[in-house]
């Protein structure tokens, strides 16, 4: 494939790709997301390919392995177009029947969605409750794309935003658009991306870096991996546009070491992009040079912290630097480095093609756009969902999530993993919003939403989260290294019936000092789940402490 030398050549290629595709030709998309893969969707895909080969149906039917569709609970997932017919819990044995029905334009009734309460069936994606309440701007393309084929991304208008940015806009105009869109970081900080870009752009050093933080250490958050594994080109396109706006020459994709499929897809995407001339020198003849490298963490949460991550790219131990030295001014090798989360970068192309005004029309007053949420815990429908900011939590929990499993009642909702908080069920009408949720003590974080049922022990949950963090601390600063194990010790005693008078005061002091004195966000937010428990579930804690006069 010769390098594309101009926007015109890219447009021509896209037209050629689309001309070769017949929208009426059925396509069977088999999900290879993490959960479906864990349920052996690879065997399902293999069965489809084998059957198609056996019956010599190559001309009549296409089989495509895609990234995560989102409905992880009901995998292995299969979506048949045209019509977006959704089949769930598909097994290799179902394959011949699906193929036969698809060729006849019929539906396999027993494999479609069925409401667990009413028995009502839903065939098409826009009828299935899980999907129909979502606004799938980012993840909606996943079922259409084989992550190993750039043509699939080009067929859904991929890289059109890059073309527009490089040929119709100046870097300042791109930056301006992102600022106007009020795109806030989706990794947990919620910081305005445009502002960070501007600081990096204005830093005096000429050498600048951009980074994709694909580390996703937040427990129960799995949407970044789904996005990056399922549609790496979208993230890459956002990154290149950002680099253009910021004036960066090199980018780093930073991700986990323990996901072979993710590594394969990202390496392939980087190679394909380079092959097509979308990375490298003089991209599409614009004069803009940019290259991108893949880097790995080695399995520790703190290296998701931006300055620790940068130390790691340098080859140093991942110790966070205090934020008085902003990484956008002095980051990797002391050069201005702009780091954003996978989902943040993935939002950029649509902001460029459809404009900031369109983007700000979605969401709430201070939180714009959609948010990917990993729905899990004691929920009926676990998976990855995408809703506009401002959506009431009730919609996420009941309409999309289907409520609590096993007929239990909802006790609490937890956001933000080990650095977030739990809120009680009576706050369920709160809207999904960065600032609103922060004020309630359950910041969205990266978007991992967990449902906790009536049997959940809220003291044990705080204990469990601290246990997780204690292992992930880098150990540099005293409040985190010492404070967290001390809190863990007290909570462990409390769950084992060994609570002592004074424990709650000790916990409160430790929580306060760890929050104020720690070097980085890990230590600073480590006590936030505990603080939310003490705010909303204090009686459960007090019950574990012997009252005056009682002996234990």
């Amino acid at each position: 494939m010769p390098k594309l030398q101009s926007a015109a050549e890219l447009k021509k290629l896209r037209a050629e790709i689309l001309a070769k595709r017949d929208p009426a030709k059925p396509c069977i998309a088999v999900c290879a997301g993490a959960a479906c893969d864990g349920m052996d969707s690879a065997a399902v895909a293999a069965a489809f390919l084998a059957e198609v080969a056996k019956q010599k149906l190559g001309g009549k039917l296409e089989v495509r392995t895609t990234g995560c569709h989102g409905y992880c609970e009901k995998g292995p997932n299969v979506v048949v177009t045209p019509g977006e017919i959704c089949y769930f819990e598909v097994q290799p044995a179902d394959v011949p029947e699906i193929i036969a029905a698809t060729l006849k334009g019929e539906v396999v009734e027993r494999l479609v969605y069925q409401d667990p309460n009413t028995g009502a069936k839903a065939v098409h994606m826009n009828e299935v409750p899980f999907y129909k309440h979502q606004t799938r701007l980012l993840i909606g393309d996943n079922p259409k794309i084989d992550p190993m084929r750039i043509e699939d991304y080009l067929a859904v208008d991929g890289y059109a935003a890059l073309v527009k940015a490089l040929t119709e806009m100046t870097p300042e105009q791109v930056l301006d658009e992102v600022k106007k869109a009020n795109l806030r970081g989706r990794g947990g900080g919620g910081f305005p991306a445009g502002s960070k870009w501007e600081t990096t752009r204005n830093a005096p050093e000429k050498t600048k870096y951009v980074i994709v933080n694909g580390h996703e250490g937040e427990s129960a958050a799995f949407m970044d991996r789904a996005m990056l594994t399922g549609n790496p080109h979208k993230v890459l396109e956002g990154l290149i546009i950002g680099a253009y706006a910021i004036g960066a020459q090199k980018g780093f994709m930073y991700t986990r070491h323990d996901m072979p499929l993710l590594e394969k897809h990202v390496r392939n995407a980087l190679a394909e992009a380079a092959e097509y001339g979308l990375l490298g020198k003089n991209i599409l003849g614009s004069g803009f040079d940019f290259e991108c490298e893949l880097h790995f963490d080695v399995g520790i949460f703190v290296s998701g912290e931006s300055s620790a991550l940068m130390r790691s790219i340098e080859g140093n131990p991942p110790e966070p630097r205090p934020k008085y030295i902003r990484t956008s001014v002095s980051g990797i090798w002391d050069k201005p480095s702009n780091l954003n989360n996978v989902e943040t970068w993935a939002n950029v192309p649509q902001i460029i093609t459809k404009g900031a005004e369109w983007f700000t029309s979605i969401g709430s007053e201070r939180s714009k756009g959609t948010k990917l949420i990993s729905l899990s815990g004691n929920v009926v429908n676990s998976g990855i969902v995408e809703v506009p900011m401002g959506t009431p939590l009730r919609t996420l929990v009941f309409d999309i999530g289907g409520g609590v499993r096993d007929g239990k009642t909802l006790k609490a909702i937890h956001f933000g993993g080990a650095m977030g908080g739990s809120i009680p069920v009576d706050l369920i009408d709160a809207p999904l919003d960065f600032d609103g949720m922060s004020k309630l003590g359950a910041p969205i974080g990266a978007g991992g939403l967990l449902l906790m049922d009536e049997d959940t022990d809220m003291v044990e949950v705080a204990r469990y989260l601290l246990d997780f963090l204690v292992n992930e601390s880098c150990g540099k600063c005293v409040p985190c290294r010492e404070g967290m194990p001390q809190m863990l010790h007290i909570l462990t005693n409390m769950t084992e019936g060994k609570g002592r008078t004074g424990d709650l005061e000790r916990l409160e002091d430790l929580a306060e000092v760890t929050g104020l004195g720690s070097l980085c966000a890990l230590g600073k937010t480590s006590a936030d789940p505990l603080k939310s428990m003490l705010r909303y579930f204090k009686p459960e804690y007090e019950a574990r402490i012997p009252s005056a006069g009682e002996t234990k």
Partner: protein
Amino acid sequence: MSEKDIDGIIEKYRGQPSSLIHALVEIQHQNHWLPREVLHQVADALRVPFAQVMQIASFYKAFSLTPKGRHEVHVCTGMTCHLRGAPKLQAKVEELTGLKDGETDADSRFTFETGACLGSCSIGPELIVDGKHYGRMTPEKVADVLKRYE
């Protein structure tokens, strides 16, 4: 893994201190552990103080400073798996293998590890052996799974 293979990896990164983690990841991936002599070789070739190589090798739990077993048994202890019963699963694995988190048995058959979160929360709690996922596990099913691995 042969000495020649290790040498090959080290040569690839000679003189590049910033590739320390890349080099260690590759060696760990192929050799399943990082012998001390190899760490010295890496320190010399990549021009990084040995103390720093040790800090990185001991800091990250993906690296093993002692030989690992033939099979890596992993129980996910992420938040969802925790709420769905991972502690009981972990206890069962500990009972059947005799190993605690991080340990390898005397026959080098299993290395047991726990950790979060592999992103397949919907099929938790999970047991992962040599990268293969066994989702929606219960303690009763563990023995059968482990039997398949010599």
